[in-house]
């Protein structure tokens, strides 16, 4: 005996056709309940990054402070990396994304995002509970107090030449949708209280440069 599967509102589900007879499904985002889904893009202000940044300088920080809620990070990408009027000494550059745990004291410096009534993917969602999203504005961010994992979870390794006003990278993923888990194992990076992500940069000497970052996440009560 065949049975119909009926949704909560009473609509009966359909099968697609006679060839493969697959059930129809539609993918929905993670159920955020009374919380929400968010996305933000920030930059350093337009070619403001000073020359002489130390190796592995922190240039972008995301810190989750709420409990018992969780932040599920879907993607972090470097949107661009460019030189401006003062060229680099040629050399290797490296930008990484690393998980931070036991983050008890926030970083400092740079600019922090205003998340009050901003960056929800639907206006009916509440303001984000994210503790801080901080972007460098010329110099390295101070680290605060936290423990970084021994290795990053994503990386861009590239060469930098001496040309001024040059687009050195385009949009490249450091974690998530456009990278390794896409279509296979949709593993969100799950942040509990006082955990977060840090982007660090190692660039050659003398150059003045700019960058921007995109970040997408959900806030949920359980996962």
């Amino acid at each position, binding site marked *: 005996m065949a049975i119909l599967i*009926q*949704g909560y509102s009473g609509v009966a589900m359909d099968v697609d056709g006679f060839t493969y007879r697959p059930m129809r499904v539609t*993918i929905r985002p993670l159920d955020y309940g009374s919380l929400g889904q968010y996305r933000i893009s920030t930059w350093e202000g337009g070619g403001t990054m000073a020359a002489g940044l130390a190796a592995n300088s922190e240039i972008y920080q995301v810190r989750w402070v709420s409990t018992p809620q969780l932040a599920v990070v879907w993607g972090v990408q470097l949107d661009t990396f460019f030189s401006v009027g003062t060229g680099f000494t*040629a050399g290797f550059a490296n930008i990484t994304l690393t998980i931070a745990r036991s983050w008890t004291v926030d970083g400092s410096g740079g600019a922090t995002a205003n998340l009050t009534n901003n960056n929800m993917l639907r206006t009916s969602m509440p303001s984000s509970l994210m503790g801080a999203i901080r972007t460098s504005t010329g110099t390295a961010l101070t680290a605060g107090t936290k423990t970084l994992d021994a290795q990053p*979870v994503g*990386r861009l390794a590239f060469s930098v030449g001496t040309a001024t006003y040059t687009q050195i990278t385009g949009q490249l993923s450091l974690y998530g949708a456009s*990278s390794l888990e896409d279509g296979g*194992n949709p593993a969100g990076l799950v942040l509990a209280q006082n955990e977060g992500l840090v982007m660090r940069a190692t660039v050659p000497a003398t150059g003045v440069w700019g960058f921007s970052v995109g970040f997408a996440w959900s806030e949920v009560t359980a996962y």
Partner: protein
Amino acid sequence: MSIQIQGYGGVVAEVDGSVYRALRVTLRPVDYGSLGQYRCSLLSGTMAAGLGAASQVFQVRWTSTPQLALIWGVSIDGLSGSATTFTAGFALFNLVVARSWTADGTGGSTATLTGNNQKLRTSMGTSLMGTIRIASTAALGAGTSTLDGQSEGQISFSIGTTANVNYLLQTGLYGASSLEDGGNPAPIVLAQNEGVVARATVPATGTWQFGMTVAWSEVASY
């Protein structure tokens, strides 16, 4: 007769609407039980000129049993030329499965996987991965393993004589950006003493740097 599907927590599933009548679903990662999901990215040193053809430059070796490692993706995160330029020619980076891997490779540097490192959620277990190793300046020692006859993924490209240029940006060798994308989410399933190895063939004279990232789950069965 119609039925409704009720989840373990008592919530009844919904159908999206009366046009397509599609059941709403949301994707979750593979259930890792008491183990976990991990991701690790490593950077080489400045690789010396004159690397032998098909030199091993990145090794991931799984040693646990009866647990399994599911490799969801391996990417090269960039291949950068330095001021010491290459002779122009073809280059090749590939990823090959290693089986019967009874003696670990040598050389390079290895990832620290103890404690909370590389977990995608702090409550997950510490990784059981045997070794993740990347070259520093020279080829890795191969250890004792049997490599498959052909690679599972590769990128071939030309290298010129210009100094300080990117020859590759982020490129998938297995997983998301390659054949399985959106179609058949088939991880490489590693049992004890199995792994994956990235090998490089580059032209002469140039020095270079590269990064590698691997994403995996550790499960009791699959």
